[in-house]
């Protein structure tokens, strides 16, 4: 087919030059079944990056939202998006999650790290400073879900105090993003976090094979990951597994991760996949070869689970921009049955006007799904023993269940047996789409008290120059 005929111009947006970070026009271009972001900088030439491969098509993956603007803006519109983040009044979504980096220290030296942590000697921000930042975030963003991040947050002995401070300020859903090493080694630490009011653990979990951890994290970690899940279950903390997906390294392990997660339910509440982005620290940039887009992940989920989950199960988000994520919710019975209970396709269930309703609904839904309910029987909370949990286990193999369901059984089981599979595609300097960025609902509260969309905060040029991190000084103040 003639190349000119093959290409179809989809629509215009804006992006940045990945070299100089200047704002430039960009076009979403359809070539065959794939969509590319094509842009040109007067000084650095033209760039083309794949942003969507195959079915479900980008054109059908939509969930329009009525724009909502922050009431209290810490950033003034001066230079234009994405240089005025605070948020500014040109932003078209409210935050549903606020992330704060409570340390820059780390006890791993991962090949992949969006924060490029652990390379500098930096003092942790004081409890008083964290309190001030959280109050400032609360004033502008309201009672969002709060993510304690880093660095490795569990290196702080006073993390339970941070959780208590956040609770006092009014955050009701608080999660910690962690590699799990301390939670595996120190059960009492988990208890203290739980007692302080921690809601959920976002556990870095890249596969069920130590070769993956050695390559991505520098050493074998699987035993510690499983121990961390077990300790969280005993403490009453729900866990969400968070695999960073690197094409060719663990994109063949997606089905195995799903099976493993189901073995560890209900302590494990779900999986949140994150295809690697090229910002911060990452293994060599391999261009389009290294890109793993959301539709590819949906299809791999179906293929590698033998249809246990299906690509058609997944829906676009009601909060962030449709191109940023997908999700599905299931009910996982004690007998191993996995039943889709997620929303219908975005177009049919959510007209075109979620607006603030979408944000509040997301805050509530995430809280409900990712907490380990106290109603869960203790025996159900405990994952199976470490020895049997890897690559098999003693729980019945999950099988897909469809057809009518008894309402009473549903109401009894749904409180404790929901299981979510979701994914988020972060943006880097090559694939940044400012339309998506303006619709972002995950903000970092920066050390200088600005709310900055996650991808803008972490974005680095091809030479490693930060859009926000460097401006604010490296690491938390």
């Amino acid at each position, binding site marked *: 087919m003639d190349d000119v005929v093959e290409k179809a111009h989809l629509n215009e947006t804006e992006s940045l030059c990945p070299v100089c970070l200047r704002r430039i026009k960009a076009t979403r271009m359809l070539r065959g079944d794939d969509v590319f972001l094509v842009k040109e900088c007067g000084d650095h030439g033209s760039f083309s990056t794949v942003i969507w491969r195959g079915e479900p098509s980008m054109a059908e993956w939509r969930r329009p939202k009525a724009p909502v603007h922050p009431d209290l803006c810490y950033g003034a519109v001066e230079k234009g998006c994405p240089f005025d983040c605070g948020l500014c009044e040109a932003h078209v979504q409210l935050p549903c999650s606020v992330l704060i980096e409570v340390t820059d220290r780390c006890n791993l030296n991962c090949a992949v790290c969006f924060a490029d942590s652990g390379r500098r000697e930096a003092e942790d921000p004081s409890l008083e400073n964290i309190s001030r930042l959280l109050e400032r975030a609360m004033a502008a963003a309201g009672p969002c879900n709060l993510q304690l991040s880093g660095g490795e947050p569990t290196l702080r002995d006073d993390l339970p105090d941070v959780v208590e401070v956040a609770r006092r300020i009014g955050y009701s859903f608080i999660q910690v993003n962690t590699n799990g090493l301390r939670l595996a080694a120190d059960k009492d630490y988990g208890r203290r976090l739980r007692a302080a009011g921690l809601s959920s653990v976002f556990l870095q979990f890249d596969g069920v094979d130590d070769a993956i951890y050695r390559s991505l994290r520098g050493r074998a970690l699987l035993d510690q990951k499983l121990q961390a899940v077990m300790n969280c279950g005993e403490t009453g903390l729900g866990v969400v597994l968070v695999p960073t997906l690197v094409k060719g390294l663990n994109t063949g392990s997606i089905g195995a991760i799903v099976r493993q997660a189901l073995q560890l339910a209900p302590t494990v509440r779900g999986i949140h996949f994150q295809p690697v982005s090229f910002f911060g620290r990452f293994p060599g940039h391999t261009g389009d070869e290294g890109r793993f887009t959301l539709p590819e992940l949906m299809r791999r989920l179906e293929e590698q689970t033998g249809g246990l989950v299906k690509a058609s199960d997944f*829906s676009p*988000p*009601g*909060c962030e921009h449709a191109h940023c994520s997908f*999700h599905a*919710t299931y009910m996982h019975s004690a007998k191993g049955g996995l*039943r*889709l*209970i*997620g*929303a*219908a396709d975005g177009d049919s*269930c959510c007209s075109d006007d979620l607006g603030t309703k*979408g944000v509040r*609904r*997301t805050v509530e*839904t*995430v809280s409900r799904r990712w907490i380990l309910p106290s109603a869960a029987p203790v025996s159900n909370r405990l994952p199976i023993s470490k020895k049997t949990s890897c690559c098999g286990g003693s729980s019945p193999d999950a099988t897909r269940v469809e*057809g*009518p*369901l*008894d*309402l*009473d059984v*549903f*109401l009894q089981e*749904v*409180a404790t047996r929901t299981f979510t599979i979701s994914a988020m595609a972060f943006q880097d300097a090559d694939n940044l789409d400012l339309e998506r960025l303006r619709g972002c609902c995950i903000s970092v509260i920066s050390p200088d008290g600005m709310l900055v969309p996650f991808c803008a905060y972490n974005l680095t040029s091809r030479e490693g120059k930060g859009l926000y991190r460097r401006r604010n000084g490296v690491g938390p103040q």
Partner: protein
Amino acid sequence: MTEKANPGIDIGWICNQCKAALEIQKIRLQYSRVIFALDLPACPRCGMILIEEGLATGKMAEAEQVLEDK
């Protein structure tokens, strides 16, 4: 979709339109992607289903809230 569960049993309700006695039928109710099977009173002639207030504001409302997605 309906089918008769206990045909002929008088449950004390009459269809206002058809004047026929309602009978318990197996009813399938769909919300989002979930289909619930329930035994509910229905008119054998026009198929109208009776959902009593307690069920509508109780278990069905609870299920709806759970299924509301982000």
